[in-house]
């Protein structure tokens, strides 16, 4: 029996960007598997010990600082 299903469109090569006339408030980071607040603090500030800065800026979306989820967009306050 032939498979009548159309192949799924491939969007893997889509590129994009964004900008605004308003000043930036803070950077954002979309959480991927393996991310932790300490890891992000190390990545953005050079020190894992500054994880609390990220947590404080995202208390509205992070209930438990030990639990962040892939796909979450979190704000990274300016260094």
């Amino acid at each position: 029996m032939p498979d009548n299903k159309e192949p799924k469109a491939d969007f893997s090569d889509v590129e994009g960007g964004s900008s605004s006339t308003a000043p930036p408030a803070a950077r954002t980071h979309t959480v991927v598997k393996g991310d932790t607040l300490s890891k992000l603090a190390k990545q953005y500030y050079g020190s894992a010990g500054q994880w609390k800065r990220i947590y404080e800026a995202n208390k509205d979306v992070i209930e438990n600082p030990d639990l962040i989820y892939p796909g979450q967009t979190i704000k990274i306050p300016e260094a």
Partner: protein
Amino acid sequence: MIRTCRMGWAAALGLAVIGVPACKKKEAPAPPAEAAAPAPAPAPPAFAVLAIEVGKGIGADKRVTAPGTTFGRRDTIYASVATEGAAPSKTISAKWTYQDGQVIKQQAETIAPTGPAATEFHISKPKAWPVGKYKVEIAVDSAPAGSKDFEVK
């Protein structure tokens, strides 16, 4: 002699004409109004999305130059979000989807607007867009703020 007299009368008449209004008593100038207490500065408007537009080009003001909803397969597609109001931090996000529900791209811009602003998002595809219907959904701090449908032909 006669000539002098005539000129004298004319001069007198002229003075009289001019003199009449000059004699009118000047009205006293109105007393200056009491300085009213300065009105409190109006509160800045709450942050809100005013318009969402899509198009093929963007200006320096981050507004779409020629709004439209039909694109070619090699076009870069721009979405511009016009906002008003001030806020210390607002995250405007764009979610681009294809007609089959696939999420093509998600983007976010976190801004600290001090008044009217425009934020743009754009996507492009080197291998050409599949023809079909698309949608861009805009959210502010994860709350839906509007969407725009468009088509690639």
